[in-house]
């Protein structure tokens, strides 16, 4: 079972993702509400996959990707972004994110992206 860390400042999005992923056989091993917490939890939990929001307080998603990648080059991070944020998604991918999901997301697409990630 793939172990996932969900990072988003919106509780609602965290819950939505959690429900979707659990239904599809992923294990949610942790949640983080900003980039700083995400980096700490990444070290503690060593998840297989991280879903990462971009706009967050404290530390944004792109910086968090950079920090996590610096800790673990093999980290699998999927960005969760809104429409119209192409440049930021590109930056995230440059920083090492593997893929991205667009809000509002559909379950089917989320699962498709996460299944592509080879653990």
């Amino acid at each position: 079972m793939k172990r996932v860390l969900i990072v988003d400042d919106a509780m609602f999005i965290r819950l939505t993702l959690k429900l979707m992923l659990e239904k599809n056989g992923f294990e949610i091993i942790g949640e983080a509400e900003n980039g700083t917490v995400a980096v700490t939890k990444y070290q503690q939990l060593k998840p297989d996959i991280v879903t990462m929001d971009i706009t967050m307080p404290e530390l944004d998603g792109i910086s968090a990707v950079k920090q996590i990648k610096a800790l673990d080059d093999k980290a699998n991070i999927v960005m969760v972004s809104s429409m119209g944020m192409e440049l930021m998604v590109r930056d995230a991918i440059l920083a090492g994110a593997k893929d991205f999901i667009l809000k509002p997301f559909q379950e089917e697409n989320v699962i498709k992206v996460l299944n592509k990630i080879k653990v």
Partner: protein
Amino acid sequence: MAGDGMSREPMLEMYLFEGNQLIEQLEEIIIKGEKAKKFEMAAINEIFRIMHTIKGSSAMMMFNNISKVAHSMEDLFFFIRANQNVQIDFASLSDLILAGIDFIKGEMSKIEEGQAADGQSEELIGEINTLLSQMKASYEIENSAPATVSTSTPDGQKAKYYISSYQAPSEDQVTKYCVQVFFEEDCQMENIRAYMVINNLKDIVSEMYHIPMDVIDNADSSEIIREEGFLISFSTTVSYAEVESTLNQTAFLRKMEINEVTEYPDQIKALQKRKEIILEDTEPVYCPPRTETVETEREGETTTTTNRQQNIISVAVNKLDMLMDIVGEIVISEAMVTKNPDLAGLKLDGFSKAARQLRKLTDELQDIVMSIRMMPVSMVFQKMNRIVRDMSKKLGKEVDLEIVGEATEVDKNIIDHLSDPLMHLIRNAMDHGLESKEDRVDAGKPAKGKITLEARNAGGEVLIIVRDDGKGLNRDKILNKARERGLVTKPDSEITDKEVFSYILLAGFSTNEQVTEFSGRGVGMDVVTKNIEKIGGSITIESVFGKGTEIFVKIPLTLAIIDGIEVGVGKSRYTIPTISIRESFRMNEKDVIDDGDGNEMIMIRGTCYPVLRIHRMFAIKNAIENIDNGIMVMIETDSKAACLFVDKLIGEQQVVVKALPKYIKKVEGIAGCTILGDGGISLILDATGILERQLS
């Protein structure tokens, strides 16, 4: 926050909870900013982030009108953030954003009530967009130099041609490939998908060209990729299988053709020529250093307000209610065990020691659960800023709202009932309390009025004070009106100010001739009183004519535990909240006066009080009928009093209030029930309800 948490979808519940929280936060920031005529960078970031979150969550829940409004506001603040020195018309900006907040609030409360969120948002969005284009226009005039920030590339077109850095061609066999990729139709952001393909390939290829070239920066590239596919040509030394697996890392591939070629197709060759002009052999050329900094900043700015939330979790209130309930029962069970009659006459040294320890722990447990339920009044207090702001605009009165002691904590259930009464009191103070600017100046006061909203702990209670420096209450006018209505029974000299002012708390009592949009219809103060009494509180008023009015609202810290006097009627036991009891005494049957309609009264110190026999009220058998043998308990609310006739007083104790089970219909006069130490049940009488029941 939301009504019945149990029955709703957890996602919807979370959406509403978080949405409401964010909107309130936003309102606070906007009002602060408007007052200060300045938005700090942190505030702008916070606003942007809040709108961004609401936009995203609402879109997920398919509340598109909310999402659209949030989106337009997000755009507005994105612009402000990027152009910090832009001239802002604070009044219209705040008005517009507050209108947006109201719209979202309205839609959310519709959703909360199970209705469709079908509000019309077009007009509002139109206004927001107009304001944005006005800002943009005026900004461009001021800064005729090229805009400092935009998502377009400042460095000219050529820099956009992206040709990756490649390993130097090795001696191995180099194969040329031409790949055409089509993505699934609804995958969105095709340009980024294409970029990912490039990104994945760049480590295994020695050169690469693709069409469209500028996948990220050209707004049309998504469209082109959607229609014509994404064409990539590259040279590599790795095997076909590896090329294929690298390409397959990308999600949402609908169709992919991989061809080994001897020569690149013509379109690509055309590109090759241009490459010579701009070839770079270092790191990949990504165009815009400038855009990048802006974008990073857009994401990177942080705010302070969320820091404190880190170690806080949200818990559904009904869970806390359940916890409180269980703790209440543990407290009772503890008494049932340690005071069990079976223990009588036994030698209990060890038992007593253990029982004391248990007692200590249950007390601690109870304290902690109580404290979990406590919330600062700040949320309710901060709401008043908005009321004051809106009203001062409409009434043309300048007002300062001072908030004192907003960290004071009370039980969550009480907080929920505080908002409406306070809103009323603040409105009254704004409308009737404070004079117009001219009148204030004439009276030698500062033109700007002042309202203070204060909370502080007072023993086991919380005192909330609404104070204004307005014209004060007109004692004579109130007294005359009270006389007209036959409310006054004493001569003027004996009636205190407090009594006079308390008349305005009665239903239908208004001395205000003018009915305004906000108040003066004679409904209001009595509703405030009723709401406050419902949560076990009381209101008193002090006022100095010409100087101002102070309204004191006293509320209990919690509703869950009350001090009560237990009384017996027949075999039943009732608990009367100590706060409602004035006195208890014995009477003689002959002192009871019958008014002829079967209503009984007694005269005490010259005042007549109705007598209510609890055994009649609740049809209890085998109760004491003769007044001589029972006891009277006088209960009162702020405006009324009556004597309850019961068999006997049993004792005073703290009781844990439990709601009546749902299958018992709501009985007027019963506030709930409690379980006694011996396992018996005692109904808790509600003074307000009883007095009302008696009148009707």
